[in-house]
């Protein structure tokens, strides 16, 4: 699957994009975020407080309960501040 990070999530993770094999037992955005939080100190910091994060699955706003599959594009970012 394709992962994207924006704003301070991108800065903490240290990259804007990466590809990942969907880990065993991961079928929701929440489980994916928990998995990512264990990949290193930058990830741990970025995913420490899921309440501060928003997500999109396949370029549409989603929630941490949204189901994901191996071919999905999942993005993590703080609440948007455009306009």
């Amino acid at each position, binding site marked *: 699957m394709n992962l994207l990070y924006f704003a301070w999530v991108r800065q903490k993770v240290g990259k804007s994009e990466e590809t990942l094999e969907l880990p065993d037992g991961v079928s929701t955005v929440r489980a994916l975020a928990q998995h990512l939080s264990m990949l290193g100190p930058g990830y741990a910091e970025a995913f420490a407080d899921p309440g501060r994060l928003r997500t999109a699955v396949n370029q*549409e706003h989603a929630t941490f309960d949204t189901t994901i599959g191996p071919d999905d594009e999942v*993005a993590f970012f703080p609440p*948007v501040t*455009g*306009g």
Partner: protein
Amino acid sequence: MSATIKIQGEDFDIAAELAALAKGGADIGAVATFTGHVRADDGLTALVLEHYPAMTAREIARHVAEAQARWPLRGVTILHRVGRLAPGERIVLVAVAASHRGAAFEACQFLMDYLKVHAPFWKQEERGGVARWVEAKPADADAAARWRQ
């Protein structure tokens, strides 16, 4: 109805955008527009905007479609800049053409309110050498929520 959505680094020519919008038909009687500008709040030296390109245009198009379903519109133009902007520069243009002013004003406000809380843009403020991510404002969430009532 015509819809123009552009995400770009460079500034825009508002007169040209409005002229293109007004070509949408002889029954256009009202054009409401909004432009957002970079304020020099507390010594701000630059605003840096990033976005999620694959999602931005889709998300804005979805809002335009919703505005079109709610009001009888003749045309919508939405332009959003990304990259580094100096104080005084324009960030965003939302322009809505309709036969009557009520629809044009309401749809323009609706689109701005929706952009603010749904379009995947993020702003970083720079003051001298210090950068800070702008936090989302509860007031913006409230402004968007009133269209659901």
